[in-house]
């Protein structure tokens, strides 16, 4: 309790139905954990408390903070529903994304709709939770549901749709409330005991999943239905002064007070191409960590400020991050992309896994199996050193499962993060690069979409989320013309830089071409 500020403490000791608006870096998770501890200390039975988080990771983190012996239930909506399934039902649940894709493909074939798998999955999902009744979506969902029925399985959406809570709680907390959808809200309501209280935590300005059915006006609905009181945390511990001033200017009702004394730095870089953008980032990262090889070591900053894990490159869409990814790899700077580092994702890796998992292989040596694949050395080269140390396949498969759980990245690894704006939520870094901030790509309105007020607002929230990840250095990069969002932002403390070196180089190249 001593480590809380006045606003945080106020939330911890307040009772009744509450909304806690918690801006970036205001210590939301910490405050929520303190609140749970406070309740338990004040003799509330742990089994009467439920905390719902948006991701498994967030739940795990909170559990870790509260300690292992806590019996308090902290989970996600899906996690909660899953607990109630019988073992047989659990086996019927489709948990594998690849398997779901097979069903979706089949449904697409049957309905002859021209959608990619991702879009199809999204539409089916929206349809199931009642967020769309568009004709194509309905017929696709119908075909898909029939396929599931024939197979005798259910998916994650069905899991929530069928969920009838057996137990009610006196205290229900919902974290990241801005990302919940109406179905989840209904479930929340059904979880509260008659005299219970609901307290929701979140930030409407960080709602970035409306395309998945999340609705940020749930705050208002909840406020009315539960006569909830609004509290706010507005002291931030994340971003330095200049960055906080800049990000506050996104919203009139946002006025976070930073508790940091450092000024920090924001650069707004105009550069001619994706390539020059990537070069700029690579050079800057080298300076940040104090050089990665002897060739550039003596030109680096006097004091390197950051290791690789303190750096993130954030983009609106994967295609905007591709060039920078290549350049970073080429410069031997270690990076992480969710799920993207694994040697098992490529052709040889997949073929190997498939063969290794077939029956009667467990006793064989991995190198034998690799040999049986009859693939050229170039393709299997990366697997060989990996497989060398296993005597048999079962040893290998055991270790593979552990690797997979960690997304093929060692938790100790210290890497530059490459993230989409969506994936960056909840994270923070000393240095953040946001790339592709030209008007064409920010807001990113796709061809078949209309540029509605609603869509623009969501895009702006994404930019807000991305820029509020930065602690000390925020570097925004764009090709002309810049995003129109910047027209209304406070750029007073922003250092505007034209990447002259890159422009000159480009000019030289075009002159050479002319000659």
């Amino acid at each position, binding site marked *: 309790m001593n480590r809380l500020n006045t606003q945080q403490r106020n939330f911890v000791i307040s009772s009744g139905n509450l909304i806690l608006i918690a801006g970036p870096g205001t210590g939301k998770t910490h405050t929520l954990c303190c609140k749970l501890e406070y309740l338990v200390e004040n003799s509330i039975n742990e089994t009467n408390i439920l905390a719902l988080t948006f991701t498994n990771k967030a739940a795990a983190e909170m559990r870790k903070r509260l300690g292992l012996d806590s019996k308090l239930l902290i989970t996600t909506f899906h996690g909660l529903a899953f607990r109630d399934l019988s073992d047989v039902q659990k086996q019927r649940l489709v948990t594998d994304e690849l398997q779901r894709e097979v069903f979706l493909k089949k449904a697409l074939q049957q309905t002859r709709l021209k959608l990619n798998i991702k879009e199809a999955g999204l539409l089916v999902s929206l349809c199931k939770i009642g967020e769309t009744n568009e004709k194509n979506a309905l017929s696709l969902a119908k075909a898909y549901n029939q396929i599931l029925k024939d197979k005798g399985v259910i998916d994650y959406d069905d899991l929530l749709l069928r969920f009838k809570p057996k137990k009610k709680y006196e205290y229900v907390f919902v974290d990241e409330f801005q990302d919940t959808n109406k179905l989840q809200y209904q479930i929340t309501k059904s979880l509260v005991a008659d005299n219970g209280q609901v307290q929701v935590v979140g930030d409407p300005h960080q709602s970035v999943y409306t395309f998945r059915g999340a609705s940020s006006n749930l705050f208002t609905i909840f406020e009315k239905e539960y006569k909830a009181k609004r509290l706010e945390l507005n002291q931030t511990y994340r971003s330095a002064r200049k960055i906080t001033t800049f990000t506050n200017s996104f919203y009139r009702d946002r006025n976070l007070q930073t508790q940091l004394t450092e000024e920090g730095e924001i650069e707004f870089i105009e550069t001619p191409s994706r390539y020059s953008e990537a070069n700029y980032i690579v050079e800057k990262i080298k300076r940040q960590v104090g050089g990665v090889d002897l060739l550039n070591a*003596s030109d680096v900053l006097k004091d390197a400020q950051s290791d690789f894990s303190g750096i993130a490159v954030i983009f609106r869409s994967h295609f905007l991050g591709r060039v920078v990814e290549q350049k970073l790899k080429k410069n031997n700077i*270690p990076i992480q992309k969710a799920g993207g580092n694994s040697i098992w994702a490529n052709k040889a890796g997949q073929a190997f896994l498939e063969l290794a998992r077939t029956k009667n292989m467990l006793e064989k040596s991995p190198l034998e199996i690799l040999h049986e694949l009859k693939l050229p050395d170039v393709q299997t080269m990366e697997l060989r050193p990996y497989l060398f140390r296993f005597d048999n396949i079962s040893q290998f498969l055991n270790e593979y499962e552990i690797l997979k759980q960690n997304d093929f990245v060692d938790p100790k690894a210290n890497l530059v993060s490459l993230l989409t704006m969506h994936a960056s939520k909840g994270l923070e870094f000393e240095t953040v690069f946001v790339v592709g901030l030209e008007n064409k790509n920010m807001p990113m309105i796709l061809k078949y979409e209309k540029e509605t007020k609603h869509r623009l607002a969501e895009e702006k929230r994404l930019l807000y989320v991305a820029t509020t990840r930065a602690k000390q250095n925020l570097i925004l990069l764009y090709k002309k013309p810049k995003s129109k969002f910047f027209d209304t932002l406070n750029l007073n403390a922003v250092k505007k830089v034209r990447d002259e070196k890159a422009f000159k180089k480009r000019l030289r190249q075009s002159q050479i071409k002319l000659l």
Partner: protein
Amino acid sequence: MELIVDLHLHSHYSRATSPNMNLESIYSWGKIKGINIIGTGDFTHPSWFLEIEQKLEPAEPGLFKLKEKYSKNLDKNLPESIRNNLMRFILTVEISNIYKRHDKVRRVHNVVVVPSLKAASFINAKLDTIGNLKSDGRPILGLDSEDLLKITLESSEESMFIPAHIWTPWFAMFGSKSGFDSVEEAFGKNAKYIKAVETGLSSDPFMNWRLSQLDRFTLVSNSDAHSARKLGREASILNCDLSYSQIADAINTGDERFVGTIEFFPQEGKYHYSGHSKCGVVMSPEESAEVNHKCPKCGKELVLGVDHRISELADRPHDFRPNKHKRVDYIVPLAEILAEVNSVKSSTAKTVESKFNQLIAALGDEFSILRNSNIKKIAQAGNQKTAEAISKMRNQDVYIEPGYDGVYGVVKIFKPGQHVQSDKQMSLLS
């Protein structure tokens, strides 16, 4: 048996490395130089690992040799004097660790030596989840050195972990711009598992003996070669049986089986003195202290050299000499001696090459010539000047301009301007 050992070098899969750093060239040049145990380098690189698997085969326990189908042809092209030299490979890699520890960014290079492909493969699998092993034979990993040490120890009981060129300012355990003040600070509780450190080109054992905290470590030397000609520019001398465990044991214990090291004159290293290369400013530790370690020309911070850094951490005086110590043989590469003696600028010039080959064919490998051959025999096989130069080198009677801020130092046998004595004068004198 006496074994000359060079554990630290790079394959052509490493950045800024000559394309001739393939197993065949390393084999031939190893024989020419007189190295007996040579590191493969870069075993974390998948393509190099494959080459190792395909071209090498197990020899004595934990050691590898080039398969006969490759070595046969190579041997044919070597002079008889060195054709039967013993040449074995040992699995090694250098990792560049960049990470934060105690709130500061550290950049530390470490050499890992393992007894088997299995152990190497264990390390590769672990490191693959930490970073990209494909883009550089010397991978850069965001991994604490202590964690790399733990992985090394896990890979096999016999695996060795050696902090590389410990005094280099930018990338080393004791580096002024990158490292720590003690082995314990760098490796915590696990410091006890480190038995040896590499002194690097910029320091020699005498400089390192000024630190009592290094007394318990074996000081090893390696070439860190990026091209075949530079193999063995520094090396360790062992006297033990031919097996990985004997070699590891000699290095780990530093007992009488570890005889000593072959050394560069440390002043020749790129970071011996302090200075600022862009302004051409070179200073001794004392001189740089007088200007507050700022470049008198441009005011920027000087890059403080190894000599300065050692003085900072040393608890013994500049001229400290242990009563009893390992052998330290200073050498100047034969090609450089020949270039100087023949007044040719480049040590890769044709004249130099032919004289070099002539000496090797007559007397054997380079290390034998530099360290052991009878001076008279050198004079017979080459000429008086060369013999005199080698004799001067053995007596450490050389002219030195220290290196600084990435600029190699100059080591000449004869002081510039001092006319190299002609054959005639030499013969009159002798």
